[in-house]
Each structure stands twice: as structure tokens, then as C-alpha cells.
């Protein structure tokens, strides 16, 4: 274990993507925000578990967050999604409310307290889904203008043809929304899944530069991906600890 890990990560101000939130403009945070993005069944949750275990073993306080987990609307979204007539903007806004609730009540306070926040997806998945559903680009980006820029964002990039087998191993059926069945891409669910995931992946690639996402080859085995991610995270923490 390197000494750097015991160093204070240092206080700093936050940077928002857009206008931010009024009462958070001048706050100082001590923690770090690390995000792992990637489609369903890409192995995100497994990776997050492993990384959490390691970071805690190294003495860091870690908070996990993810989508649809807010106290305010997390369950409401699950119920609302059963209503397949739900409009696209409505669902987009609902997800934004869920994200905002966790952002203000969990992510920010944890960062202020010096936690490493490990986010199982952040605004990028939400933006990508909205864009694939034809919502206006500026509108989608403005919507999440209240979010802060994370320290690092990894994107588990998995070929749709590889991904579909992982989905079957995990659930044995294809999810309605994750297959884009709500946007009429194809009569055939299998086909629809491939087209949808390809489009999501294209949006991620387009966001890579704008948001500095780090693509991680997700076609490899779970231990290989974990080694890769862990090395990068350890390296990052060491760097910030030495600054």
C-alpha cells in the first residue's frame, strides 16, 4: 500500500456542466467522484462491487449511487415505466428528478464529507437514452446542467453482439426499454436490441470527447476489466494524493 493513499485528497471547488445549483456554487468538496457507465449487463455492478471492496480495504470511505435509487421517485419510475404510453419527455424529466434528488441528498454531501463516490452510471446514460429517443440535443444537455463534472468517467464499451449474450445469461429475456422496443426500431426484439444498443454506443462515442469519457474495452472477461479499472483508479488516487 502506498503512502499516498493516506494523504488528504484536498479541498476543492466544484465545476458544473451548466448553470449549476444556486446554493452549491461556492461549496468545497474533499471527496472524489468516479463514474462507471455502460449498458445493462455490461458488468458494471460487478465491477463496482469489486472496486468498492478494494477501496474500502485501502481505507477510503465509499458511497455507491445509481439510477432509480432516490428516496423521492426511485420507485415511482419503476411504476411509471409499466405504463408504455408514457411520453418520452415525461420519462426524461422523471429520471432527471430522480438523479437530482440523489445528487443533492447523497452525492454532494458525501463528497463534502470526503467520500469517494462510485456512481453506477451518471448523466451520460440518461442523455444517451434521450438522444436515441429523438429528444433535442441542447434540451438534453441543458437538463443536466445542474450536475457537477466527475473526476473520472469510465465507459464500459461492449459490442452489442457480445452484450446480448450477457443479457441472456443474466435475465433470459430482453428488457422492453433496453431493447428500444418503445421506439419501434424493429418488429423483431433481437434485431431491435442490436440496433438500439448500437445507437446508444454511438451516442457514447460522440460524448467521449465532449465529456472526457474513458472507454474501457468491455468485451474482455470480468477479472481483466477489473484489473484495468482498478489500475486506473489507483493511479488516479495516487496522482491526486501527491498533488
Amino acid at each position, binding site marked *: 500500500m502506498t503512502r499516498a493513499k493516506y494523504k488528504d485528497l484536498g479541498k476543492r471547488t466544484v465545476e458544473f456542466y451548466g448553470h*449549476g445549483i444556486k446554493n452549491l456554487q461556492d461549496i468545497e468538496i474533499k471527496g472524489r467522484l468516479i463514474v462507471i457507465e455502460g449498458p445493462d449487463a455490461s458488468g458494471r455492478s460487478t465491477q463496482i462491487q469489486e472496486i468498492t471492496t478494494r477501496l474500502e480495504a485501502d481505507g477510503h470511505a465509499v458511497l455507491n449511487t445509481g439510477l432509480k435509487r432516490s428516496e423521492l*421517485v426511485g420507485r*415511482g419510475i419503476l411504476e411509471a415505466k409499466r405504463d408504455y404510453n408514457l411520453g418520452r*419527455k415525461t420519462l426524461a424529466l*422523471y429520471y*432527471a*428528478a430522480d438523479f437530482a434528488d440523489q445528487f443533492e441528498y447523497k452525492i454532494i454531501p458525501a463528497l463534502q464529507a470526503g467520500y469517494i463516490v462510485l456512481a453506477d452510471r451518471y448523466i451520460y446514460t440518461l442523455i444517451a437514452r434521450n438522444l436515441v429517443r429523438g429528444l433535442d440535443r441542447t434540451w438534453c444537455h*441543458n*437538463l443536466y446542467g445542474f450536475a457537477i463534472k466527475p473526476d473520472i468517467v469510465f465507459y464500459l464499451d461492449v459490442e452489442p453482439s457480445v452484450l446480448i449474450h450477457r443479457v441472456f445469461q443474466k435475465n433470459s429475456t430482453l428488457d422492453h426499454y433496453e431493447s428500444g422496443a418503445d421506439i419501434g426500431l424493429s418488429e423483431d426484439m433481437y434485431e431491435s436490441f442490436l440496433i438500439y444498443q448500437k445507437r446508444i454506443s454511438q451516442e457514447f462515442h460522440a460524448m467521449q470527447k465532449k465529456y472526457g469519457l474513458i472507454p474501457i474495452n468491455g468485451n474482455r472477461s470480468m477479472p481483466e476489466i477489473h484489473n484495468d479499472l482498478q489500475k486506473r483508479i489507483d493511479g488516479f488516487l495516487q496522482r491526486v494524493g501527491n498533488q
Partner: protein
Amino acid sequence: MKAEPRGKLIIVEGIDGSGKSTQIHLLEKWLAYKGVSVFRSEWNSSEMVKEITSKGKKKGLLTPTTFSLLHATDFADRYERNISPLLRAGHFVLADRYVYTAFARDIVRGCNPEWVKKVYDFAIKPDVAFYFKVPVDIAVDRILIGRPKLKYYEAGMDMNLSNDQYESYRIFQGRIIEQYDSLAESEGFTVIDGTLNIEEQQNIVRKKIMPLLEGHQTKARTRR
């Protein structure tokens, strides 16, 4: 805000106690009497969102951002399923409060004005937007006459304006009026003096709506 629908969208704005709901009710009756196919849409009424919003409100969990986003969700649900398709199909839609209510309340709560306006920019601009302007004391007295129990967010208690809920409500409503006043010109509100008597106000409203009826297919009124 986006392109023309075929129907007509008429909206009313004003603080609680400004008399706007009475006026829209009378307008609806008149249009229906004339055989116009008319629908009504009310603020904060989407079944799906209502339960969650009220739960969050009860627990005092809402921040200005989540308050704003939940109301936007509610509005989007009504807009996507109800207002927009009705307009596309050529009907008259009367909205008791529209996006301006959100602009005013959210901005008073401290949300960024540009952010809020962009969030709602999918909504079309109304054909006519009435703003019932009433001095804050008159409107507040109308509401508080029976000293009703105000709700936490309704009274603006989340903004720490005053420890007294009635005082807080008064300050909050005053700030909303400031927002409406600043929106009035840029958004082209038809401002109506809400202190006039009900008939006078309705008369002005109907005169303003009259031109919209020209060329609008009205079905012959059938007596039963």
C-alpha cells in the same frame, strides 16, 4: 417554443386569489355554449406524478431543483398525452396555469431562469395568455379570509422567508407577482385588472377570444 398547432391554446396565469379560475370557468362555459369543442387542463394534475409529488411535499424533501423537475414531469405528462394531441386534432384547450407558473415559482425559489425556460421549451406558445393582475394584499386576503391551513410549499416555508406561515405566504406571493410582471411583456401576456368585477373581466376575455373563433369549425349546438 415550437411551431403552430391547429387548435387554439388559451391559458390563464395569476397568483392564488387573482380570480383566474373563475374567469377560465366562465370562458369554458361560453365556448361550450357556442358549440366549440373545448378541453380544460389543470396545473399539477397528472395522476402519475401527483402521488410522488405530494409524498415528497409531505416529507419536506423537495429542493428547488427536484420541485422544479417534478412539476416539469407532471406538465410534460399532461402536455404529451393531452394538450399537444388535442391541439393537433384542432380543439380548444384552456389551461389553468401554464409554463409561466413554473417560471415564476422556480425562479423565486432560486433555480436558474435560463435553465427553467429551456426545460419547458418543448411547450408551444399559447394563442392567448391572460394574466390576472391583482395587488398582493387583495389576493392574499381573498385566500386567507378564513385563515385556512396553508401547506408547507404553498406558503413558501421552504425558502425561510418568515417563521410565520401567513407572512411567508404574503412575501412569496409578492415575489411571484414580480416575476409575472417581468414576464408580461416578453411573453406577450394580455393583462387583465383582477380587481374589476367578474362580469367586466369576462367581457374583456371574450372580446379577446372572439377573433380566434373565426374560421373555427363549431358544431351546431344540440338541445337535449
